[in-house]
């Protein structure tokens, strides 16, 4: 199986001549994941990841010094938010549920509607968004330049003062290290037949067969990176049109990005609107064939799962996809 054997070492693309090889972080991705592509203009280094981590957890990046990335993408909640819809700076509820940032480095698109491509591009969005962190980038760079701990680290890592672009690069680099793999599913796939319990094994078979889950949740990150209408929230008076607002294609109405399912047991509630509290609710939705509408994906149809099959599927998601080395990160010491 020549295409699977290379999963241990990440492909690190060196930027031309800016950094020496030993500074480059040799990212070891967990078992079961593919090598992670690192953009050539933002190579991973240990110091950059460390800086990104501080920025990620630092509420001073927000207008009221109270909201950090981790407020809505919290390692204690699967790097997502336990609220159905997150609350940002002025206490305002956002339009959508906060997705996990686990394995976001593998995603072709960011956001439920895919409106951002790279993590670098994405990171500066929430900082400036009035409803999220409500911070002007000029104000932010001045603020961080006045903190010697940050100023020095930016000098060391980028050779510049604090700049908006490099804030984005540092945060993106940190996010690329938040990885979930090495789950019972991966160990089973690698040949450890005892890795999954009998119920989870039955659930696995359903997932990749009769229940049709792998039609969309495919590949090592359990997503096809595409957009599908599975009917969630489509019965509201004014439904979120999702991908259609970006692609302008009528067929994309009500389509959202297929999310990863790694460590999904920790990321409740579920879906772009956080409308499903438990994995049992999710399975119920699929079993009844989603919510019918003209753009409902062909791959969503009545499954009529038995109670036992529903339990088995949930067990596979919980037991099978939980990482053995969950990427728990504590809040680092923030620079003064």
């Amino acid at each position, binding site marked *: *199986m020549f295409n699977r054997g290379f999963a241990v070492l990440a492909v690190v693309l060196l930027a031309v001549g800016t950094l020496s090889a030993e500074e480059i972080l040799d990212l070891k991705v967990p078992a079961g994941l593919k090598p992670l592509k690192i953009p050539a203009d933002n190579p991973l280094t240990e110091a950059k990841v460390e800086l990104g981590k501080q920025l990620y957890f630092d509420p001073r990046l927000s207008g009221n010094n109270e909201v950090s990335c981790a407020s809505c993408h919290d390692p204690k909640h699967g790097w997502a938010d336990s609220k159905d819809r997150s609350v940002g700076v002025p206490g305002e509820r956002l339009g959508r549920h906060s997705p996990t940032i686990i394995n976001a480095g593998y995603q072709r698109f960011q956001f439920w509607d895919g409106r951002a491509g790279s993590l670098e591009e994405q990171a500066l969005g929430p900082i400036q968004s009035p409803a999220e962190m409500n911070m002007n980038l000029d104000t932010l760079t001045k603020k961080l330049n006045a903190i010697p701990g940050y100023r020095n680290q930016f000098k060391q890592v980028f050779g510049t003062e604090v700049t908006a672009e490099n804030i984005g690069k540092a945060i993106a680099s940190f996010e690329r290290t938040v990885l979930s793999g090495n789950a019972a599913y991966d160990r089973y796939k690698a040949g450890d037949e005892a890795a999954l319990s009998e119920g989870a094994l039955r659930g696995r078979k359903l997932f990749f*067969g009769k229940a049709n889950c*792998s*039609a969309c949740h495919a590949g090592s990150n359990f997503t096809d990176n595409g957009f599908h209408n599975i009917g969630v929230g489509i019965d509201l008076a004014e439904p979120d049109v999702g991908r259609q607002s970006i*692609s302008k294609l009528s067929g994309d109405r009500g389509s959202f990005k297929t999310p990863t399912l790694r460590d999904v047991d920790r990321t409740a509630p579920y879906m772009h609107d956080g409308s499903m509290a438990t994995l049992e609710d999710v399975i119920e939705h699929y079993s009844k064939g989603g919510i019918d509408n003209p753009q409902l994906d062909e791959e969503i149809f009545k499954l009529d799962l038995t109670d036992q099959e529903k339990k088995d599927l949930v067990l596979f998601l919980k037991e099978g996809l939980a990482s053995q080395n969950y990427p728990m990160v504590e809040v680092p010491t923030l620079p003064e």
Partner: protein
Amino acid sequence: MNKIKWMGVVLALLVSSTCVTAAEFEVVSEGLYNPCGVAVQPETGHVFVADSGNLKVVRIVDGKPQDVIVDFGTDVYGKGPKYQVGPLGIAFLDTNTLVVGGGGSPDGEEKLYAFTVPAVGEPAIKASEANSAMNLAPGDEIKGEGNFYALAVTNDAVYVTCNGDDTKGWVSKATRDGNKLASFERYLATKEAVEVDAPVGITVSPDGHLVVGQMGEITVPEDGLVTFYRPNDGKMLANFPIGLSDITGLAYSPGGQLYAIDFCWNDTTKGGLFQLIRDENDAAVAKPQKVSELDKPTAMAFDAEGNLYVTVVGSGEGEDTSAAGKLLKITGLK
């Protein structure tokens, strides 16, 4: 597989080449409705087209379509834009035996047909008058198959890309008995092999390998794959993330060069004809080199002289493509 061996395999799969010849284009026929299949008849050199939206297979004579097989079933592909489709892939087994992949029935009832084509001047026959027709019905645990998009013919079999069970992504295999189909079964689970959806384009390489174009998600750009399999046991030999979006057709020129057409669903202005070229320094890498833009290309076939025929859906008023389809002839390819 050890590295040296794997490099050897790859080297044999794609011919490397450094420049693409200037190609010339000619519109052979216009006014088709979502044409989705093209085949060149052995001996006569006549070009046959699956005029899919019109639910028939036609022979193009002096630029005009003549009905050959009519009255296929119909279905709609896509959620908007939507495309009306009927018969899809077509391929000749011999001078008079044409295999047609259905696209107009529900999964499980969809048929692969074998017809004896009427000679020039004879009246058209109906789809129901096939010599034989076979389907892939659902089982207890397995979905029925449908949308038999493209066909590749070897000495002893016809390989058919299917679009029913998206957890498996079947390429099915049919065998023949004279001018009839003898068997039809699910054969290669491409989704299990490459973890990406939808085998669509398919051809046979000069050294006898099956070459499958995996379309990936229509909402995702540049996720297409070109994968090589050994036909006798279905073993995957190599897989190239080629950088195209939605490969609808693959074909080798008589000169042994591999070409692909890309529908590029998410931005059809980027679709076109590409020559696939192996990287000279890295045998595991192959890249597309654009020969030309094409407006929603759907199928391709070379004739014995090296002329390439391509069907395109084209663009009409709004979403109406009912007379926008064309058959193009491209000359001057390597």
